[in-house]
């Protein structure tokens, strides 16, 4: 599975961290770090994180799915 977060759009709402804490972590109040290539067994959690992102900053490509912002703009 491959993930990229548009960290310019990201404003640190951290909804992804609540939903997939093994993949998304906050460093400090607003700074997000994440696992770009997590194991596939995280797929469901990561997909939930992508739909929950209030700024739709998470792009996910995994087994059979491409989820995320249509364009970076």
């Amino acid at each position, binding site marked *: 599975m*491959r*993930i*990229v977060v*548009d*960290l*310019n759009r*990201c*404003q*640190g709402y951290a909804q992804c961290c609540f939903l997939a804490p093994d993949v998304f972590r906050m*460093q*400090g*109040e*607003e*700074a*997000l*770090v*994440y*696992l*770009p*290539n997590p194991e596939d067994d995280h797929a469901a959690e990561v997909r939930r994180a992508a739909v929950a992102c209030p700024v739709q900053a998470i*792009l*996910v*490509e995994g087994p059979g799915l*491409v989820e*995320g912002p249509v*364009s*970076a*703009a």
Partner: protein
Amino acid sequence: MSAPAPSVDRIVIVGASLAGLRAAETVRAEGFGGHLTLIGDEPHEPYDRPPLSKQVLTGWIPAGGTALPGRRPLDAQWRLGVAATGLDLERKEVALADGDRVPFDRVLIATGTRARRWPNPEEAALDGVLGVRRREDGAQLRERLAAGPRRVLVIGGGFAGSEIASACRELDLPVTLAEAGRAPLVNALGHAIGGVAAGIQRDHGVDLRCGVTVVSLESDPGGAVRGALLSDGDRVAADVVVVALGAVRNVEWLDGSGLAVGPRGVACDAGCRAFDANGVTTDDVFVAGDVARFPHPLYAYQLIALEHWDNAVAQAEVAAHNMVCPAPQRRPHLPVPAFWSTQFGVNIKSVGIPSFSDSLMVTQGSMAERRFVAAFGYRGRITAAVAFDEGKWLDFYDERIREAAPFPPRFAVSHRPGEDRTFPAEFPDPYTPSHSPTVQLTGHQPSERRALRLPAAQ
């Protein structure tokens, strides 16, 4: 009766990183059904670089674990691990290092940048002297840090150097950061905010040396680096030295191509079409990403070169669109530049170009508390804003920059900083040698025949 426009059947993208990938996706998304080739000098599928100075170094992820997701299937030919060595505009071919020549109807130059090497080749070759740009660099540096060096010396206090120092402190490693300017991050954010960054670094235990350059690197008898001599006479003992002195544009392969190429990149118009050496817009050559220099009306039409992740994506999308659309549907690339860096637990974000300013004002929060928004202005108009852990407010400033709203901004907010004053924005003179600029403002007279190439040092 005019001849019909030539058909575009073959698109070649030189550069297979973030910009190249996004351009390829956009070209397909817009319905291009012809032959698509991506050429990349690294033997890897496109991968994301920012983690290489952060969570790769702390060991949370392996250097090979930053592959970028694709947004759609590409149906493209990938030529990875082979560098482009020339561009022939007459024959419309890209020359490759393996002797091959790849024909195109339209070509996108997205070859990006590479880390500036340490200027002394012997010292650069010492064991333990590393840069961080590529996946292999990240892997190497991670290995060195995991081995528990006695001290790491980071040369250059720009964003990359600061992030690397932050990772070292996360690993509880002693780290010295040597910065030629008065404070870290000064080229991008100026002296006032640089001062805040300096405080944060020192509070996290970084041995921060400002106003010094590294004169030479010293080695032990076995050829491993053991330390450095600083310009103030001090010596720093270190067994890992990270050179974070900014980036060099990958433009050497375009020597002799006839394009407007220089050390600051390939000049193009607002629609991402490259200029030739006379400043005339080409038809079929496009540029996007770190390697591009483009004019921006918000910044007095100066040619701007950005090393921002956001710009690589947005510009690639505009260039790709313009490569395949009918002429009346061309779009300009007119971003409000946006940037982020995470270091020492702080989320630093900026919109606009802070160095394009004469004054700044803290509009929200406080620099003393290290949580604030500062607005920058040039001749009475707002040109940028920088936030430290206050990223949710930047949409507002983005809008003010787009409108060229008045500066200083005189609006009442709840979180009034102690003083309501502006002070001069001090940035290092861009024409003196400096470390790691992330934004380069250049003037470029279209009447010039050719940009003056500086001797290629690395």
